[in-house]
């Protein structure tokens, strides 16, 4: 679920299952669940999508990733983000395996490339923390 930030952008509304992920982000840590069989998965779930078991444990990750793919949104497909165009929407592949949706920040949109190494970059907005990535 989303709520609108004071500046008008949509923000995540954590729930009991996902709250530890958002709490860690606020403390500048990228934390996900690791299943002893399937490895690290994203997004947080009550059971592992590899085997549906619940013996996963939270783990602090490296924050390293590569750009799997991206686009530059020139239109603001979300009208709540229209005043931010152009912005880079990306899927990054974490060093530990899973993919995340994110924004690439800290460089011009023209400088983003598929396969580019990036690292996590936190952005506090109101009472939640967004997880962006920036070039290494």
């Amino acid at each position: 679920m989303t709520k609108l930030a004071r500046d008008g952008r949509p923000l995540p509304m954590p729930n009991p299952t996902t709250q530890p992920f958002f709490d860690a982000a606020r403390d500048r840590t990228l934390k996900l669940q690791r299943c002893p069989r399937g490895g690290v998965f994203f997004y947080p779930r009550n059971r592992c999508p590899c085997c549906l078991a619940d013996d996963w444990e939270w783990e602090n990750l490296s924050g390293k990733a590569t750009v799997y793919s991206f686009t530059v949104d020139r239109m603001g497909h979300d009208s709540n983000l229209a005043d931010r165009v152009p912005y880079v929407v990306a899927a990054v592949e974490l060093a530990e395996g899973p993919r995340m949706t994110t924004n690439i920040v800290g460089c011009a949109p023209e400088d983003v490339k598929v396969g580019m190494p990036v690292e996590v970059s936190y952005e506090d907005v109101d009472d939640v923390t967004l997880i962006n990535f920036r070039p290494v």
Partner: protein
Amino acid sequence: MGKRAAAIVALSEWAPQRRWDTPMFSMEASAQLAAETLADGEFEKDEIDGLVMSPIPESPMFGPSALAEYLGVQSNFNEVVDLGGATPAGMIWRAAAAIEVGICENVLVLCPSVPAPRRVQSAGAAPRGRARLSAYLGGDSWGSPQGQFEIPYGLVAATPSFAMIASRYCELYGVEPETLAKIAVQQRYNALANPKAINRDKPITIDDVMNSRMIADPLKLLELVMPCFGGSAVLVTSAERAKRAPHRPVFLSGYGEHLTHKSVTYMPDFIDTPIRMAADRAFKMSGASREAIDMASIYDCYTITVLLTIEDAGFCKKGQGGAFIEEHDLRYHGDWPLNTHGGQLGMGQAGLSGGMSHVTEAVLQLQGRADGRQVKKADLAYVNGTGGMMAEQVALILEGA
């Protein structure tokens, strides 16, 4: 030789419109489409014993009973399909399978996509007479992963997702933007011969596509569908009943469906789509070879969708889609007729009815009813439906009797 248990024998299709001048409820549109389809196939209303629909606003719950009551139909098979753009293709095989197992014989498949009349009492909530979709597509519901992990980063609507797929494909296989543009140009040529196409009088060139506005890199305006209103319906019946229908029966000889993800980010591989599994199953079931296909009717929300479908449905090897498009003439009189109605890129995307246009066009071609754009030899068609973010995939093999 594949399945020959059920055939499409009749249809109705409304010309897509950017603005819809005569607002009506989905149930009203369904009644009108049903009457037109029954007339096309010379069926009596009381022969109908199966209904397949998508969710309708007037009855978000209990949809089939609402529709059966409204149409005055007593029905043995009642199905709501929710597969995004793949819904119509998914509806067709469900109807055929239900007929094959013998639970019903004559199934109406309904895809109304029209704006409801204005509410007289509530001045504030007047619906606009213009095609609009919420960019969040319901993904912002409480508890939805999309609302927490996709929407805040701008991964909304569909274009950014398909743009990311195109981005990775073009990076790995070096396909030129002009090659993607050719898909839009040749489909537009086909649309010029379709009186129902929204772009029937607007030819375009490769340069027009290349010079159109960049929307989400690398996708440009003329590579995107135009949302419209419209509606369509088809009648699926048993092989036995099909013999007494006025038009050539079109058998569903093979079908397949596959699904792996909702958000594009979690697609197992951006450039190896669920189409492969769906198409492999459909071809295997039908016994038809890829080379024998006379025409392809491929879901085309974007140009990249067509290129990936050509590859993953097995018409060429992975990475060869660009070369395939350059080598073939995709026009209705060409050597590889593709989306002879103009596709949704040329005809307009009338909600779910846009997906149905790929089915209705294949049926019209196989029945020899495609008028000014008739494919010379049309006995075997490949039809494909794509839903969501390259997520829901349905493949159909249609064969003329």
